[in-house]
């Protein structure tokens, strides 16, 4: 069985924000609302002149806290792991905003409901890639099937990301590379 997840390769990510822009264009999001966002790693985590980033949206967790806490059952989880939010069912109580440790659900005050990344399940069902994945110029963001993916070079809870095995986010990360410093002999 397929279990979809995002693969964030911080070694390849150049921080161009194409992923976030593609997401925003795909869903024509309200100004100020983003479902996918680029988070620069702090100097404590990546203390080099280069910068490194995590491109993050909903992590489509195995035990989604948003789904568990939603009083109107606006969240459902598909068999392939994608956590889908039904905006029409949502009454805007924002309990999911308090429950998600990853800041994925966003409140749309103009519409009075919460929104979040749906992993472009409509596109996936049509055999297409999620908009963010398709737009990434460096292939730093990929859609993977966890059951078939070789995760030997990945980590699930890198520094800069909450360590929440109780919720089990599905996103996999490859850590940014340590820059090679070339010195010449004097």
């Amino acid at each position, binding site marked *: 069985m397929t279990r979809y997840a995002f693969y964030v390769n911080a070694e390849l990510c150049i921080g161009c924000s194409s992923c976030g822009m593609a997401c925003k264009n795909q869903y024509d999001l309200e100004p100020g609302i983003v479902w996918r966002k680029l*988070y*620069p*790693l*702090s100097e*404590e*985590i990546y203390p080099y002149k280069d910068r490194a*980033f*995590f491109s*993050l949206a909903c992590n489509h967790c195995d035990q989604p*806290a948003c*789904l*568990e*806490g*939603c*009083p*109107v*059952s606006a969240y459902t989880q598909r068999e392939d792991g994608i956590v889908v939010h039904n905006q029409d*069912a*949502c*009454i*805007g*109580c*924002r*309990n999911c*905003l*308090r*429950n*998600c*440790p*990853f*800041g*994925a659900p966003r*409140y*749309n*005050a103009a*519409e*009075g*409901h*919460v929104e979040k990344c749906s992993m472009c399940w409509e596109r996936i069902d049509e055999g297409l890639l999620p908009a963010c994945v398709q737009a990434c110029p460096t292939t730093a963001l990929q859609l993977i099937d966890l059951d078939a993916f070789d995760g030997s070079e990945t980590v699930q809870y890198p*520094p*800069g*990301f*909450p*360590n*929440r095995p*109780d*919720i089990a986010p599905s996103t996999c990360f490859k850590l940014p590379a340590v820059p090679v410093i070339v010195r010449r002999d004097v």
Partner: protein
Amino acid sequence: MENFELPLVLFTLLTQIAVGMTIFAALRQWSTVEGATTQSRNEWLTVLALIVVAIVAAFFHLGKPLGFLRMVFNLGSAWLSREILGFALFGLLAAVTFYMVYAKTPNGLLFKLTAIIGLLAVLTTGMAYSSAGIDAIHNLLPLVFFLLTVFTLGPACASYFAGEKSKNVLVAVLSPTLLASLVVRFAVPFAWLAGNTVTRISGQNFLASPLHWLHLVVLLAGFVAVQRSKTIPSWLPIALLIGELLGRIAFFALAVSSGANLGNLY
């Protein structure tokens, strides 16, 4: 500072006062120390009014208020659904109790049942706000805070309606609860400083907030006043209400979500 939700502040605070008053009204009236007097009718009317105002306030929190009836759709896993059901039952029982007191046919069993359902509803509130995304309060602390509010404002507000014989009991409950509330609320932000980064930030937010310290000052003043006078002065419930209001705003505004720290060390 996270957004503080005034409707939620009012909903949680007012329902907890109502539950506290119900518990002490039930204790006094059930034990027939006091019968169905005009005072007790006013007391139950106050309880009912608090519940109504709390529910109206809660509507202002919802993006789509007309969808409130669907809030009990997820009783299987959502504490928020259980909270809504709990307070709906509590409100219904309080209304029936008020009617029976008004009709001078009070029922001791109904008093007790209303108080127990109210207490269970507060338990669901405590669990609903033990939010998985906010490390500092993803535990039993919200429940502890809320119960302290119930047993602080409950006896304090009940003192306006209690007969002279009952006031000693209210003082006996209020005094240690004020002390416990003071100790817990003073210690918790310091304990948070020993937690992970976001929990530490929550602790720092509390310790730097005038809301938090004013709340503690009010609790301390209340404790000293009750200890000295051995009564509940008429100004005290109002002062405690203001203190709890400040504390509740701090609770909703100052505890930091994990999501606010993405990209930084946890």
